[in-house]
């Protein structure tokens, strides 16, 4: 506990480019960028695959690969290949690792919609796109949001590890602390990342409350 007091009580940790606010902002920037890119790719793709049933194998492969691929190894390899010192390459593994949870859950959500419901929607004269947007998406929304939540948490987590390959953000406290054996910084950084991850989790739960129709939430 006194480590925590040492970390958070130190005025030097609250200002400047190495301060907590600046690091938090960096962390949020990278995470948001990676998350948005991943969502823009994976949500439409998952909806399309779920709706048409074509490309389901891609989803299975993505799901398994995402779990098996070691984050750290991927980060180190991509950054070494792209050249140390630039930020953009670090985004690649962040995006790559965020895509599978969104893809898988969006796909499962859309595919899992009751066949009768689909049938009724077509039977009433909705066109393919209307069926997807007006029927399948609202009903699949809880799972789509779950995928987005898992991806967001994953991005925050990977961005922390990415400090090792030179990315800024809250991970710096942990990585630098480990290098210099300043364990107060390690623990302080860990607590900050944990708080951020929980905040992200909480934000998505709130979003779920607001965005999902009560008629759908009850069924699950």
């Amino acid at each position, binding site marked *: 506990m006194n480590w925590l007091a040492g970390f958070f009580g130190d005025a030097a940790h609250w200002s400047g480019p190495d301060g907590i606010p600046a690091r938090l902002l960096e962390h949020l920037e990278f995470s948001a960028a990676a998350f948005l890119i991943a969502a823009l790719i994976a949500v439409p793709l998952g909806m399309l695959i779920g709706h048409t049933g074509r490309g389901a194998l891609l989803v299975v492969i993505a799901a398994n690969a995402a779990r098996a691929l070691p984050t750290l190894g991927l980060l180190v390899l991509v950054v070494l290949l792209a050249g140390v010192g630039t930020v953009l390459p670090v985004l690649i593994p962040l995006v790559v690792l965020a895509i599978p949870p969104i893809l898988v859950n969006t796909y499962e959500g859309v595919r899992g919609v009751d066949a009768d419901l689909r*049938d*009724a*929607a077509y039977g*009433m*004269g909705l066109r393919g796109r*209307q069926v997807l947007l007006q029927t399948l998406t609202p009903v699949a929304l809880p799972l789509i949001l779950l995928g987005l939540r898992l991806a967001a948490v994953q991005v925050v987590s990977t961005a922390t590890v990415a400090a090792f390959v030179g990315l800024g953000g809250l991970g710096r406290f942990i990585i630098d602390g480990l290098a210099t054996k300043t364990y107060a910084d390690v623990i302080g950084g860990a607590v900050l990342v944990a708080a951020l991850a929980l905040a992200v989790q909480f934000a998505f739960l709130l979003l779920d409350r607001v965005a999902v129709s009560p008629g759908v939430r*009850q069924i699950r």
Partner: protein
Amino acid sequence: MITFEDVTKRYRDGTVAVDGLSLEASTGAITVFVGPSGCGKTTSLRMINRMIDATSGRITLDGQDVREIDPPTLRRGIGYVIQQAGLFPHRKIVDNVATVPYLLGWSKKKARSRAMELLELVGLDPALAGRFPFQLSGGQQQRVGVARALAADPPVLLMDEPFSAVDPIVRASLQDELLRLQLELRKTIVFVTHDIDEAVKLGDTVAVMRVGGRLAQMAGPATLLTEPADDFVREFLGRDRGIRRLSFISAKEMRLSPSPSDLVIDEDGRALGWRTADGLAAYGTFNPETDSLRVALDAALLSPNGTAVAVDEEGRVRGVAGRDSIDKLLGEYAPPATGPAPGGSGGGSSSGAGDSEGAPA
């Protein structure tokens, strides 16, 4: 009018779901497709609104080939009700009912007020409008399904086993409701069921289909009961065809006798019972204006002396019908002779049925 002209549906794996089907579903009437599972009845229904496209042949709707119409446009003009109602779980009841009006570009206000009218029409409490589907019972959901199908006032209604997932009591009330609605709306309805009793109750015309997608017989329910075309139809219709047929004969022409002195009647003209040595005995009544011969016969069987009491709408006694009157009416409606008599009714015979080749599986 909906016309099937030599319609066949063959799947890529070679299975034939519907085989050379030709029939007509009259405007303003209920046509029921009935048959065992695998007989192609649902496929036939779904070819009308092009949920499935026929492999060959033609289906026309008031003379126009349905294949000339873009499917979504076609479907918006045809009401569609399915087994589990298929309500949108994320939309409130009122918006579920207003789905097609919204698609047709009605204003929200107009669509919703139309939806409210329809909820009332199908006998639902308007207070349910703001609920979500999961908050309704199966029977209520099915009523919403019917309301939704009627929302844009389509001339044609397709119903695919709409009442088979609810319990028998609810099913009976939904059937009665449909018949009541139909008296008012006069839609062209095609109704699919595997339940022959439902078919006979609802259908103005019943098309019995056999496995392999062939039409076995198409007729009015009374004709179907008295003159089944072959063993398959006879088997499918089941027992008690003779009794069930009486449901389609009106008791209007029953010759009534003045009520005898042993029928005790109160000052309002309502019957209290038959006088017997042990006190008053039970009696059965029928209304000759609205009831069938089956009800009259049933009423007679419920009285100790075999005499049915005829009453008017208010329940006042108008006379009685004894066995002789009932017998006479029965005789007038005896089924026509059709060549050599086909073997019995099939029911209750003590000898094994193994000698005949049996029904197709």
